[in-house]
C-alpha cells in the first residue's frame, strides 16, 4: 500500500518535471505572441487590450520589409545549395571508401560546432579580403557552409537504409552510375531531401551572427531584430517576432514531418 502511493507520488513528480520543462521552453514564445497583440507600448501586466497596431506598423516599415526580403532570398538559396551539397557529401560518404574520408566528412560536419561569433569574425576577415564582403550572396554562401552539415546528416541516415542491391540492380540493367543515382538513389532520398531543404531554410532564417558580420548594409530579419533590440524599447519587435516565430517553427515542423525524428530509432519516413 505504502509502496504504491510512493510510486504514484514519484510518477506525479516525474510528469510535473517534464511539464515544467515544456513550460520553460514554450513560455518565451507565448510571451512574444501574446504581447504582439497588446495595445501597450511596453509589454507588461496588466494587458493593455487587444490591438493589431504593431502588426500593421511592421508592414509600413521599409527596413523590416527589406530585411524580410533579404532573409527570404538568403533562406531559399541556403535551402537549395545546402541540400545539394549535403546530398553530394552524404552520397560520397555512403558509396566510396577513400583516404581522407573522415576529414572530408568532418569538413562538412563540423562548422555548426564552431561558435558563430568566432566563425562570423573569421568569415568577415577573410571574405572582405577577397572582396566578397557585404553581399546577400555571401551571407547565403556562409549559411550553406553551416547548414550543409545538417543536410548531410539527415540524408546520410536515409542512405543507410537504402538496400545495397537496389543500385546494383540498376547497374546490372544497364544504367550508368549517373542514371542509377538520379533514378534510384535520389527518389529514395526524397523525404530526406525535402526535410533538409526546410531545415536548412530554418537554420538560415534563425542565424544572425554571421549575417550581421558579413552582410554589411544588407540586414536579414534576425539582424534587424538584433539592431532594434539594442535600441529603445520598440513595441514592433513583438510583432516582427511573431512573424519570425511562425515562419521558423513551421519550417522545422515541415522538416520533421518528412524525417521522423523518433527516440529509439531515427528513420526517414514517407509521410502518409
Amino acid at each position: 500500500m505504502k509502496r504504491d502511493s510512493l510510486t504514484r507520488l514519484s510518477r506525479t513528480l516525474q510528469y510535473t518535471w517534464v511539464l515544467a520543462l515544456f513550460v520553460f521552453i514554450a513560455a518565451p514564445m507565448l510571451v512574444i505572441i501574446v504581447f504582439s497583440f497588446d495595445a501597450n507600448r511596453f509589454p507588461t501586466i496588466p494587458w493593455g487590450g487587444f490591438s493589431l497596431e504593431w502588426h500593421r506598423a511592421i508592414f509600413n516599415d521599409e527596413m523590416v520589409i527589406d530585411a524580410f526580403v533579404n532573409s527570404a532570398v538568403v533562406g531559399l538559396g541556403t535551402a537549395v545549395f545546402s541540400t545539394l551539397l549535403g546530398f553530394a557529401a552524404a552520397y560520397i560518404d555512403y558509396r566510396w571508401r577513400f583516404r581522407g574520408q573522415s576529414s572530408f566528412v568532418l569538413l562538412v560536419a563540423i562548422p555548426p560546432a564552431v561558435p558563430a561569433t568566432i566563425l562570423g569574425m573569421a568569415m568577415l576577415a577573410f571574405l572582405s579580403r577577397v572582396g566578397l564582403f557585404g553581399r546577400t550572396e555571401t551571407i547565403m554562401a556562409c549559411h550553406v557552409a553551416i547548414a550543409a552539415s545538417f543536410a548531410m546528416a539527415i540524408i546520410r541516415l536515409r542512405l543507410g537504409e537504402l538496400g545495397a542491391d537496389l543500385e546494383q540492380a540498376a547497374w546490372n540493367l544497364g544504367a550508368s552510375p549517373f542514371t542509377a543515382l538520379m533514378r534510384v538513389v535520389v527518389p529514395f532520398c526524397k523525404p530526406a531531401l525535402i526535410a533538409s531543404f526546410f531545415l536548412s531554410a530554418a537554420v538560415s532564417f534563425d542565424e544572425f551572427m554571421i549575417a550581421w558580420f558579413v552582410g554589411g548594409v544588407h540586414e536579414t530579419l534576425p539582424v534587424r531584430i538584433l539592431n532594434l533590440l539594442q535600441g529603445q524599447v520598440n513595441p514592433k519587435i513583438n510583432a516582427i517576432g511573431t512573424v519570425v516565430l511562425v515562419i521558423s517553427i513551421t519550417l522545422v515542423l515541415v522538416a520533421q514531418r518528412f524525417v521522423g525524428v523518433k527516440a529509439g530509432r531515427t528513420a526517414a519516413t514517407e509521410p502518409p
Partner: protein
Amino acid sequence: MADNATYSPEVTFIPAGTPPHRARTSAAPAVLPLALGVPVVAWQALFFAAPLVFLIVITFWQVKSFRLEPAFVLDNWSRILGSGTFHSALIHTLVVASTTTVLALLLAFPAAYTIALRLPIRLRDLAVAMLVVPVFSSYMLRIYAWQIVLSPEGMTNSALQWLGVGPLPLLGGGFSLQIGLLTLTLPIAVLIITFALSGVDPTLIEAAENMGYRRSRVIAHVLVPSVRPALTLAATTTFLLAFGDYVSPLFMTGSRPPTLSILIVDTVKSGSQWPRASVIGVAMLVVLAGVFGLGRWFVSRGMKR
C-alpha cells in the same frame, strides 16, 4: 532494419578501395565522385576552412593607421594573454559555461528519463518533436522574451508588486544569465539523453529489477553507466554553446561582466583591432578543443573498464 547499425551495407558488396562497377565506368572512373566531391570541398574550403586558417594567420599581423597589414609579430598574443580584461573574461566565461553544463545535466536527466522510459510512445515522439523545434528556431527572440519577463518593470515584477512584494532584481545577474543559457542548451541536452536512454536494452533494466535493485540503484548502476557517452556528449555540447554564446550575456546581463564572445564583438565592431580579436577567438577554440579532448578521454576510459 534493426541490425542496420551493426553492419554497413556498402561494405558487404563493395570491396574497399576498388570501384564497385569497374566495367561500366572504365572510360572515366572518377567522373561522378569528382563531380559530386569537388563542389563540396571547394565550398567548405572557401567559406569555412579558409576563414578559420586566416583567423590564425592574422593573429600575427599588425594594424597600422587603422589598416590591417601582413607581418609576423607576437605582440597581439602577448598583449591579449597578458591583459587583465582577458583573464577575468576567460575565467568568467569558464565559470558561467561550467555552471550551465552542470545545471543542464541535472535538469535534463530526470526529464529525459521520464520522456524515454515512462511516456507512451506517441507522447514520447511528440515530446521529441517539441524539443527539436527550439533547437532550430528563434533563440534571440526567446531571450528577448525573458528580458520582458524578468526586467524591473516587466511581467514578473508587476505580478509581484500586485501581490505586495517589492521589485526584485531578476535581470542582470547570474540568475538571468543562466535562464538565458539554459533556454539555449536545455532542449539539446534533453534530446541527447532521451535518445540514449530509449536505446538502453530493456532486459538490462529488468534484470536489475529482478535482482531486487531499487529504482535509485538501477539508475545509478545500470542507466547512467550505459548512457555515459551520451551524457558526455550532452555536457560537451552544452559547454560549447554556453561558452561561445553572445546573445544571453548581451541581453541578460547587459555585457557586464563581459564574456569572451562579447569581448570579440566589441573589439571587432568598435575598433580595428582585428588581430587581437582573432587571438581571443583562437584562444576560445583551443579551450573548446581541450574540452572535447577531455570528453573523448572520459568516454574511452569508461569503455575500457
